[in-house]
């Protein structure tokens, strides 16, 4: 039995980490990395501004994944967006309704609300009744979120995290009430639904980049540039694999299987 499991994965991880760390180091030395603009992230402020003008609340939900499964990075990334949205809503003095499926995030969300209200110098903004645990059963959660959207008619709705079949229920319900919707997920099966029903969609890795992008911190932004190096590496591997396969060699496939 091999002492090191997933050897090719480990090598790939080390290369990717090296690229990200290199970009971070460059940023620390003052060298700015070019990061492409992501419309779905840039429009978050506009959606909150629209809600403020209309005097209607903002809604956000972070999906189904708990904090200890393979989908947890999506929840972490979604919470990062939530903290930014909470800060902006507190500054503008408009209510932010958070609907929750994963109960262990309740204390985190509550703390984000409290911090956002303090930072904005608007302690009255904090209203724990706007942090609403729905259910940890998928369709009960979907029913609850749909009810909130229909009754309270938020002008902006953010769907950021891991979703399954309920994704379309949320997106279409938001569409019916005329909310400006920004969705982000790495659940590939749900991406088409979000693209169809939402105004902007963060595709896959864009959701993971959202936290760094929203921070506008040059060092964090550099890590996004680092992940682009990984994409180039993937392209090279794909091309090499294609050429070798056509030539009848399984060498690269066997290496990557290690």
């Amino acid at each position, binding site marked *: *039995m*091999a*002492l*090191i*499991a*997933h050897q090719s*994965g480990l090598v790939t*991880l080390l290369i*990717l980490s090296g690229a*990200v760390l290199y970009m*971070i180091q460059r940023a620390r030395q003052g060298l700015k990395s070019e990061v492409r603009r992501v419309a779905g992230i840039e429009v978050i402020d506009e959606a909150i501004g629209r809600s403020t003008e209309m005097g209607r609340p903002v809604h956000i939900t972070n999906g189904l994944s*708990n*904090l*200890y499964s393979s989908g947890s*990075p999506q929840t*972490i990334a979604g919470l*990062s*967006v939530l*903290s*930014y949205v*909470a800060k902006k809503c507190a500054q503008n003095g408009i209510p932010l309704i958070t609907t929750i499926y994963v*109960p262990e995030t*309740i204390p*985190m969300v509550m*703390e*984000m609300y409290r*911090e956002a209200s303090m*930072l904005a110098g608007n302690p009255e903004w904090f209203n724990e*009744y706007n*942090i*609403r*645990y729905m259910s*940890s*059963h998928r*369709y009960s959660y979907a*029913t609850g979120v749909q*009810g909130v959207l229909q009754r309270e008619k938020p002008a902006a709705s953010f769907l950021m995290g891991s979703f399954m079949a309920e994704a379309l*229920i949320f*997106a*279409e319900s938001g569409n019916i009430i005329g909310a400006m919707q920004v969705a982000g997920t*790495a659940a*590939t099966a749900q991406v088409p639904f979000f*693209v*169809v*029903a939402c105004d902007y969609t963060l*595709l*896959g890795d*864009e959701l*993971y*980049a959202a*936290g*760094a992008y*929203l921070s506008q911190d040059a060092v*964090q932004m550099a*890590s*996004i540039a*680092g*992940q682009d190096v*990984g*994409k180039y590496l993937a392209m090279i591997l794909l091309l090499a694999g294609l050429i070798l396969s056509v030539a009848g060699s399984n060498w690269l496939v066997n290496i990557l299987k290690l």
Partner: protein
Amino acid sequence: MSFLKNRQIPIGITLVVGLVMLVNYYFGAALPPAKSAATLVQNWAVIVAAFALLIGLINISRIHINHLLKRTKGQWIFSLWLLAIMYTMIALGLIGTTKNPGYQWLYNYVFLPIDATMYASLAFFISSAAYRAFRARNLESSLLLASGVVTMLMNAPIGEIIWAAFPVIGDWIMVVPNVATMRAIMICIVMGSVSLGLRTLLVMERGYLGREE
């Protein structure tokens, strides 16, 4: 001072847990202590999550009791119904576990049909979303419309009767362009999650703990 304001504690926990899981994934076979530490951490996570359900129960109860007390228009009657059903289910489950006939009746004849109804409502949402997506406004949406029609006819028995090539073209769309696009997105997702993981381990990504400035 609030617990999360003192960020060193949650950040430290994240760092240690992240490293334990990473070391276990690659070196678990060679390092038995890493494997047992990872198992321990996973068990803790399950226990913490179970306790968090209690927080959820308190959260729901507080919100809906508040609606009841305030007699919130258009809401309080639903809050009353929710609380009544929720606590009835809890009481029946506690009295005779989930095998309790009353619990079973509520689950099988109230919960499951409502659950199935919600799932079924997706058909209508898909129809309305498809109507918007498949309007041929530009080249991209026209391509989407054409491939949507072909894959629909591939799945419908009548498609093959109309033209024998529909299943072949539909299958090609699903297996070649669809899989290629999905794999490209998956590769990008992996890059993104590695980058996010690194930022979290390097204590650069702290947005999930709230914004400091």
